[in-house]
């Protein structure tokens, strides 16, 4: 059931050849027909709060464009994410720092699944859960897991060596089996990203 739910949520990146013949589905952020996903975002960093709009657009099979707008107007970030890295199209002056941009890349890359595209993975399943662990190289890993007892949530974590960098959750709308919201939390500093799907 859990796996079926995951499968049903594939939209942006799915079933690419992997070690086991097919890469398992990962939560999708975009619609099938136009490859566009829009989310209301609340980002808390240190003592700062930012709310706005995030738009994901699939530009090709392995590239996702991300635009972050402040709620009341200006565009703050426009970048292309791919498994190989990111390209900054526009960044607000205060965000135009390598460390910040890399953090955004890893966070949104992990949430969107772009980081694991074509990466080797292993499956660990038990009676209660199903886990996919992707090796990103340089001791970095992303693991997605789901509890069979609760089909509404898929969790993930990004590890660097033995340290967990971020933990994230996908919450599903039981009526549509589509992602309704996401939450990502950094473990080494205070940064929380909440995304809530907007249906236009």
């Amino acid at each position, binding site marked *: 059931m859990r796996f079926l739910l995951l499968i049903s949520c594939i939209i942006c990146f799915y079933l690419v050849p992997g070690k086991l013949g097919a890469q398992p589905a990962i939560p999708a952020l975009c619609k099938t027909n136009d490859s566009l996903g829009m989310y*209301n975002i609340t980002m808390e960093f240190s003592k700062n709060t930012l*709310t706005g709009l995030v738009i994901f657009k699939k530009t090709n099979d392995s590239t996702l464009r991300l635009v972050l707008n*402040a709620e009341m*107007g*200006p565009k703050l970030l*426009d970048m292309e994410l791919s498994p190989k890295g990111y390209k900054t199209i526009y960044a*607000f002056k205060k965000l135009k720092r390598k460390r910040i941009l890399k953090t955004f890349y890893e966070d949104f890359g992990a949430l969107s699944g772009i980081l694991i595209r074509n990466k080797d993975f292993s499956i660990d399943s038990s009676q209660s859960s199903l886990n996919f662990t992707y090796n990103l190289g340089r001791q970095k890993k992303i693991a997605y897991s789901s509890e069979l007892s609760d089909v509404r949530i898929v969790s993930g974590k990004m590890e660097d060596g033995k340290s967990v960098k971020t933990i994230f959750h996908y919450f599903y709308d039981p009526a549509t089996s589509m992602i309704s919201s996401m939450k990502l939390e950094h473990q080494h500093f205070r940064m929380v990203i909440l995304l809530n799907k*907007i249906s*236009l």
Partner: protein
Amino acid sequence: MKNRKSSRSAGSILFTGILFFMCFNFVLISAASAQNYTPVKDVAGFKKLYAAKSTAMNTLKSDFVQEKSISMLTNKLSSNGTFIFKKTNKLRMEYAKPYPYIFVMNEDQIIIENDQKKTNVSVNSNKMFKMISQLTIDCVTGNILNSKDFDVKISENAKVYFLVLKPNQKMIKSLFTEIDLLVAKSDFTVDRIDLKETSGDSTTLIFSNKKINTPVPDEVFIVN
């Protein structure tokens, strides 16, 4: 061979002609739209009148439509809601569509409420929010004309004043290249604000159904 060459040159002449015709039309259209506005001769008089009207405005209630042009998207993103201002520094923008969202600035506090959560933000911890909301208030109240953060050009036609504001303050300049205002001559309220961003995108706020000085209780600026 000669025929092919001559047909190529005829083609290029035709192409040049079309290009010239399009450019000429563009110049004509631009000139025509620019002619709609003539520079205001008595700028000091305008500022005085605008300031007097602004001083007399204690509250403003209005509907608004926000249109956002993002280079990545072919269509504009449109949202709408209600706008409430109360002197001196209270603002409530309640977005109804496409999703509910409330932005309140109450003096030095900013409250944001969406369906995820309600967030209280001190203006000191988010200078950008403060700047944008203050900018909106200043545009609506006309205080922007007194601001040293902008160079202002004022022109007019029969119905509106057209204000072009070029920012010279560092933070505003990092976000916006230009802010255009259309101010109604009838009551000196703002009809439209165009925020042109350094990224090339733009945001337009269009105000309608404006009500000046209707009672607005302070509770409006407290989000429960």
